[in-house]
């Protein structure tokens, strides 16, 4: 039920209703139907949905060291384009030494893994098997 309330709340905000009005409307509606205790869970669900939307709208690029982001810039941009990211998409760079080298780009539940870690793992598996 909280999911339905959360969806309705988000739809109200997307329609342009101010946040204060929407919040008081939600609280009032919940109280009237005897679902007052659902207020906090519904807000948490709204928060989770908004964060997920924000997360998918942000591309994440993993590199082994900071300088890789510059040296591999053209390859990263090509990968992000392939994943469907536009120039307007915000890109978050994260340093992860365990990928050894190369980069991993993630956007909109899609991944482009061009790391040395994956290549070495594939090499190992091809030798072992």
């Amino acid at each position, binding site marked *: 039920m909280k999911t339905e309330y959360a969806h309705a709340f988000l739809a109200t905000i997307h329609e342009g209703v101010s946040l204060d009005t929407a919040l008081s409307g939600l609280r009032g509606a919940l109280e009237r139907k005897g679902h007052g205790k659902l207020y906090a869970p519904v807000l948490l669900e709204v928060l989770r949905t908004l964060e997920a939307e924000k997360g998918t709208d942000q591309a994440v690029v993993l590199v082994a060291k900071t300088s890789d982001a510059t040296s591999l810039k053209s390859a990263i941009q090509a990968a992000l384009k392939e994943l469907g990211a536009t120039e307007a998409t915000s890109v978050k760079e994260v340093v*992860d030494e*365990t990928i*050894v080298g190369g980069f991993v780009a993630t956007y909109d*539940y*899609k*991944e*482009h893994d061009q790391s040395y870690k994956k290549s070495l793992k594939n*090499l190992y598996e091809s030798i072992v098997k």
Partner: protein
Amino acid sequence: MSTEIIERIKKEIESLDSAVTTTEIGVVTNVGDGVAAIDGLRSAQMMEMVVFSADEGASLEALLSKTDTLYGLVLNLEEDSVKVVILGDASKAYEGMKVYRTKKLLSIPVSEDIIGRVVNPLGEAIDGKPTIVGKKNMPIERVAYGVMDRSGVNEPVHTGIKAIDSMIPIGRGQRELIIGDRQTGKTTIAIDTIINQKYEPKEKRPLCIYVAIGQKRSKTASIMQKLQDAGAMEYTTIVATSASEASPLLFLAPFAGAAIGEYFMEQGKDVLVVFDDLSKHANAYRQMSLLLRRPPGREAYPGDIFYLHSRLLERSAKLSKELGGGSITALPIIETQEGDVSAYIPTNVISITDGQIFLETDLFNKGIRPALNVGISVSRVGSSAQTKAMKKVAGKIRLELAQFRELEAFMQFASDLDEETKARIESGRRYVELLKQPQNNPMPFYKQVVSIYAANAGMFNLVPVADVRKTEDSFLSFIERDRKVIFDTIETGRELTDEVVEKINKAIEDFKATIA
């Protein structure tokens, strides 16, 4: 030197055909009770296997030394997420974990090496012996063969139990339900049937698959030991799940058994699959469905519980000659509560199967073992598969027992009864005694034929009821020793010719002379 190595490895990596492609991923948003809700994976299919990635943040060394992979099975496709049941240690899955598609529907690797082994529903060996190398991946779920792909049931599966082989015959490709309360000997009948297959000629012997669904590990181990002791493990595979395992594995177990069976059936072989038991399977499916938030129906089982069992049992078939003529015979087991066969799951499975063997606690306590109620047990297609020899002798036993059941109520007034009724009751008691059999001691069909023929000929009327089984043993040993040709002729010809009948009659006369 080390620079050289580094350069060489770099070149090797560059030369690799790593074909970097875009992969679809999902992220775990919620996990609990063995079920994970996952955002993403928009193109995931129902029953597709997914892999939970433990790569993130792990060093290359740790990654390469890792041997276990955590798999999940997609079972709910929802508007903005998918729900996956975790096949393994669910505590390893966490919120935010990445999940990858395998683009493969759940399947298990099967090869001839699986015979004689104990495996889990994913086809992994759990008997401590070497890994099983699969030749073919068999899908766990698939559409059963259609009408035109099948042929009629025309060959028997001998259970080695006189009461069943004579009155409730089972054919290859049939689905015969074994139903009864706890501790009535349901598993024993199934195990005896598996053991009895060793008497079949090797080329015609069905391969056996015993599927233990949510059984105690000790019970599965003891069954394996019994089969090993009887020499039956060489043609048997055990798919084992214990009560302590996650419900998705219990749910998959019978489907894995059917998938293994289909591998051999498609090669034209005969297979016998025992599902022990479907009540526990229904309970596991109920648990899983409730965790997946599917709406509950009668007795809290999900609405598709009938479909679940019917699509499983429909996979047992006798294939047409064009498709190799292989078969899967299914012996599902259902445990009833207080003999209530009108409960939801028993009625469902009764209506799906081609007959049922009812076992009763009262009969078991009276010492009639197997505790078979022959009055309400039935086989709908098996009679056409019965051997001619058995058909010839079985008609009378059925009639005699039916009359005995009607007269049984008068037994307490025995002194007031006329001679004919008394004789019928006495004859019936001897038939009941003859049909008793100790557990794990199945009898080859040719011995059954001779034994029942002797009973029909009134041989056991000469001895007290308590001595019927002893006399039967002596008679069969007498034939085995002095007239083995009778057994051999029936075994190979599967018919009771006039010549054989004459020989049996002669043997009965000679045996009577020895005991007189």
